[in-house]
């Protein structure tokens, strides 16, 4: 926790934006380690993949498109300091009434959580309680979240997607001439993709699921595009296919819900999909998670395509 504080302070003081972005990546990695310690393995997984991976790449792409240095602030920063300080004091005063850390009798542990923990085994039949809640008990929430992600992806495409330079064939810019990078990438991509699939379909049993798998899948793609060039990556999976996947994921999620309506059950109640309730839940969660993974991966990859499609070629000497 202290280390996190130090990193955040360094981010506050530094003016070189490149270092700021790198530090925020370190910050995410440290907080992922902390989350594992707090028993939130699924969350730590996501934070490591998202914070230390994808967001760093996106931030760096933005820096390449804008500027790498922050200007001196022109106005005094005394007022914000006072406001922030007062808010902090008020919040600390609020914590005095909070249940102590790790207290099993805290109110949060006595509402719906015991039901989830006790009944997941018999009702859903999968060991990972987090996945069961995510996809089944709270399927509505997750559908909403996926729609938000979908909307954000569409927003990015609308905002800057129209300005992608058309591929013109002769300006393919790659790092292919770096022997080490090329070999390591070739070695890594296979295992990363395999790992993404494992995380996707093994999310019922261990930590993992559609959200994490989508991000990891996208990470493999972004590495490929970084080293072998955007045009090559576009040739493997064209932007059009990605955009179709973007919508298909949400559609799959919503569609599973509609199917359970046809069987005379509530929306997103998977129990009717299989021969037994537990089998139905398994099938439903598998499909829904697949939809989530598809949308998340598509949003990440298309965002990366759009961002890096705008960067004018940078030669090696400039770095």
């Amino acid at each position, binding site marked *: *926790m202290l280390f*996190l504080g130090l990193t955040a302070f360094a981010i506050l003081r530094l003016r070189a934006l490149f270092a700021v972005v790198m530090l925020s990546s370190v910050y995410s990695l440290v907080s992922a380690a902390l989350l594992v310690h707090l*028993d939130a393995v699924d969350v730590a997984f996501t934070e490591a993949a998202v914070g230390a991976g994808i*967001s760093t790449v996106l931030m760096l792409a933005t820096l390449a498109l*804008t500027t790498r240095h922050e200007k001196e602030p022109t106005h005094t920063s005394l007022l914000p300091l006072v406001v922030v300080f007062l808010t902090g004091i008020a919040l600390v005063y609020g914590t005095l009434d909070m249940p102590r850390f790790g207290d099993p009798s*805290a109110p949060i542990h006595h509402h719906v959580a015991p039901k989830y*923990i006790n009944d997941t085994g018999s009702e859903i039949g999968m060991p990972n309680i*987090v996945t069961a809640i995510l996809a089944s008990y709270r399927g509505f929430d997750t559908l909403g979240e996926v729609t938000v992600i979908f909307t954000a992806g569409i927003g990015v495409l609308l905002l800057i997607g129209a300005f992608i330079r058309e591929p013109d064939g002769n300006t393919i810019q790659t790092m292919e001439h770096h022997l080490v990078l090329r070999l390591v990438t070739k070695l890594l991509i296979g295992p990363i993709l395999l790992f993404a699939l494992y995380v996707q379909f093994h999310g019922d049993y261990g*930590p993992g699921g559609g959200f994490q798998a989508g991000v990891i899948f996208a990470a493999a793609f972004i590495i490929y595009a970084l080293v072998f060039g955007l045009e090559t990556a576009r040739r493997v999976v064209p932007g059009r296919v990605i955009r179709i996947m973007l919508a298909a994921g949400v559609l799959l999620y919503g569609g599973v819900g509609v199917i359970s309506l046809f069987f005379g059950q509530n929306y997103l109640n998977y129990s009717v999909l299989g021969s037994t309730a537990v089998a139905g839940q398994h099938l439903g969660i598998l499909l829904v998670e697949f939809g989530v993974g598809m949308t998340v991966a598509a949003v990440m990859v298309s965002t990366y395509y759009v961002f890096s499609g705008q960067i004018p070629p940078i030669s090696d000497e400039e770095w």
Partner: protein
Amino acid sequence: MNWNDVLGLFNYWMVIILMMMGLYIVVSRGNLVKKIVGLNIFQTSVFLLYISMGKVSGGTAPILTGKPEVFSNPLPHVLILTAIVVGIATTALGLALVVRIKQSYDTIEEDEIQKADEEMEFGKPSGDSKP
């Protein structure tokens, strides 16, 4: 207030410090990329707050193993797991806005954007008002 209380609340206090640092960056820095990094710090501190509340001492990760065990509360995990991915999607949207602002204004400093806006609305500041 004894030593136990201090230890029991330490996590929440660190969360608040992180949160306030993020807020301070957002409010006081003019650079739009820096603002987004500040927002991310704020966001992570909220994640840590939720997960800290879900922790049960002596508990373990909420994955059923067949043995009776104490589990940490899985509900905050679910909420935060999705929040992280939504967070990166909205961050990407924010960064896309920054890129568009750069294309239109040729700067990502808040002051300069404001100045450009005023000039567009009221014309050049007086002194060189003659066209």
